[in-house]
């Protein structure tokens, strides 16, 4: 096997929209570079804690979770790239990408899962969306059952998007037993 795979048209997702770029996987880890320069993300293979693979509309998304809890999402892989990526992560990091499914049912009720600094909202064990807690500026408890998450806002908010998420709230009924008696969660 040659040292390295190159993938074009891979976008880095996250708050603030998406950025197109190019991704390189090599023996030392993974490297993503923004198209036209600027931002680059380099992850050493030793820092990779987990890898996920998810089918998203018309393409595929690779999730890379690193040591400090950060989670990068790279979108734009073809179905046939899964085999290459699986081999790469197995050989380089000893990690097998874990497959996730995306919920498109449009329901607003489900489960919340906290992993690293990601909060995942899933419907019927499929992921509906995730937000990074690093983007949360404040959480508030409203009444007994509602939790509000406010997101950081500054001049760069919305650089690549027209509409930017400012706030979400979750309603946790009394019948939920997952977060009983823990005022700091979710």
């Amino acid at each position: 096997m040659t040292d390295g795979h190159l993938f074009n048209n891979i976008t880095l997702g996250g708050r603030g929209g998406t950025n197109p770029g190019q991704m390189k996987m090599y023996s030392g880890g993974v490297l993503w570079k923004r198209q036209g320069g600027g931002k680059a993300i380099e992850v050493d293979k030793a820092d990779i804690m987990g890898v996920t693979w998810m089918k998203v509309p018309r393409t595929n998304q690779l999730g890379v979770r690193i040591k400090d809890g950060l989670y990068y999402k790279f979108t734009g892989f073809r179905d046939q790239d899964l085999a290459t990526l699986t081999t790469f992560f197995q050989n380089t990091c000893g990690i097998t990408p874990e497959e996730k499914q995306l919920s498109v049912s449009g329901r607003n009720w489900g489960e919340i899962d906290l992993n690293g600094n990601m909060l995942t909202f899933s419907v019927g064990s499929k992921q509906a969306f995730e937000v990074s807690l690093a983007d949360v500026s404040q959480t508030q408890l409203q009444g007994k059952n509602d939790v509000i998450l406010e997101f950081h806002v500054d001049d760069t908010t919305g650089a690549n998007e027209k509409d930017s998420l400012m706030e979400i709230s979750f309603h946790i009924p009394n019948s939920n037993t997952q977060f009983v008696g823990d005022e700091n969660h979710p």
Partner: protein
Amino acid sequence: GDNRSAARTSTELFAYKNINDLPPPREMMIQIDQKNEAVLLPINGSMVPFHVAFIRTVSSQQDTNRNCYIRIIFNVPGTPFSPHDSNSMKFQGSIYLKEASFRSKDPRHISEVVQSIKTLRRQVVARESERAERAT
């Protein structure tokens, strides 16, 4: 759409069956998919669909700095006349997304979104309640 003609109750309503039924990813902005009765919200770099029937209210507001805000409130159990009260038994223990607020750069787009959601929601709710009435 035809694929939902079998839906009988709000618990069975869904926006999409398959991932590739979603509209092609475009600009990161709130979109309405009339055909599938869905509202797509840009959350963390992804377009996240919600069926319009699960939306309770939508409102917009503009501040002095010409920023425009939109607030979408979803149905949750325990509110009066909430159609979810029948579901909440079925999905006990679930956590609900209650509200999502966005800031927009485009007030005209936001007023269109508010109008479209209101109209679409009215149509769907009317159809569903008619269907429920016929069933009894």
